[in-house]
């Protein structure tokens, strides 16, 4: 079952990459994308704070990045 999940995930990512090649913009069309508010993480400190809060209070962590350890949180 797990192998099946991983195979499905690999297939999904391969599909996304191949699908991605038909999208995109030319380098001179990146004016909006270059704005700070269009970065995937606009405030890295706030993202780190939220990750730490939810890591401490819920059974899930990571996803955006590494979910690893880091505290004996109560």
């Amino acid at each position, binding site marked *: 079952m797990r192998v099946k999940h991983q195979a499905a995930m690999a297939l999904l990512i391969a599909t*996304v990459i191949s699908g991605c090649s038909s999208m995109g913009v030319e*380098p*001179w069309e990146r004016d909006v994308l270059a704005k700070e508010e269009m970065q995937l993480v606009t405030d890295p400190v706030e993202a780190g704070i939220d990750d730490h809060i939810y890591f401490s*209070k819920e059974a899930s962590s990571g996803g955006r990045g590494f979910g690893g350890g880091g505290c004996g949180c*109560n």
Partner: protein
Amino acid sequence: MAKKNSKTISVSLATATCSLLGTSVTTPVQAQEEPGWDFNTALLYYGESDDRVQDVSLNILGRRTYVDDRFLTLGLVLDSLTGATPGGALPFSSPQTFTSPSGLAVYTTPADVFPLDDTFLDTRFALSASWQQPLSRLFTMNAGLTASKEYDYLHLGANFKLARDFNKRNTTVSLGLAFANDELDPEGGAPVPLSAMLDVGDLSNKTGDQSKDIVDVVLGVTNVASRNLLFQLNYSFSNASGYLNDPFKFLSVVDGTSGDPIARIPAPGAVGPLYEYRFENRPDERTKHSVFGQTKYYMDGKVLDLSYRYMTDDWEIDSHTIDARYRWPVGDSSYLEPHLRYYTQNAAEFYRISLVNGAPPVSFASSDYRLGDFDAITVGMKYGWKTRSGNEMSARLEYYMQDGDAPSDQIIGNQASRELYPGLDAIIAQFSYRFGK
């Protein structure tokens, strides 16, 4: 000249996109950056209701930009934690006395109140350092170290990420690896799993230091779909092995018919619990798989940020997280950003609200509410503005609420009329200041 600038912007943006994959503390990269330092700082207050956990946290992230898209990032977090936290026992119609985690004192919970351990007090320091640079025209690497220290806890970690651009740098594929080793050294020692809570001064159920190893792998794709739309898709694998218990959590031992705790008599002359409790035990390995998707969409100055995460693990916990933010410009130099987050998880297979006296022994059991069946909602608002000198400030206020249920097939006798899940309400208040750009 205009074309050259565009190219610089595109290279910087691609680097920025790469830099946003793989680590939770990353730095957005601005186009055409000059070498120098910039700082991103925040003061946070996190406070739970009912005098539960209170945290005041100072966060500083400094970044040195070098020529050729190379960056050094240094982070410092200082947390001051106080307050009470659920130990894992159920409420009862009489007061309950518990031996504190150190084994050297007791604390008592009044009748009909959810038992909280108020002996909790800690200071946490966390440091991080990372270096990012291009390896060739299309490859970028990022290597980092992390460390954190609490009174009884030490974390050390290392991470590495490689990213490659495709499709005129509209698509970035990255692979990140992280390894961490965490050591626990609770005062008096970690309890023997499933052992009984003993009288004050009796440390015969304590063991020595414990540790765990955590390996994370994140495979990600970031893609620019159009001038106004980009998205990210990550798959994460995480394996933790070693001591995965919370040494401070325990369960009530109850009667199989009434559901009431089993009475206990401390040794002559000793002070100790008046009811039976046993320390928790979790499997010594946990493997998690997550899929995370995020999209950002720009609409005439406003930005919609939507993300979703699905997590599943071999403790049979599944969770779903949906996060939405909407950045709304107010005038030329400020914005409002409402935030909504919904989280839901089901219970771990070994989650138990109590242990039944005389029942066949179990291998694993925990009543930690974080392994239970619950939903959580966060509602928040942020206001950000640029100062006259061009620096940025923001203030945010959020409300976080958890609401859970005890599994109905675990509720015994009189337990049906009691509160069986602690729930949680918390306020998150934060002030941020960015300067040096």
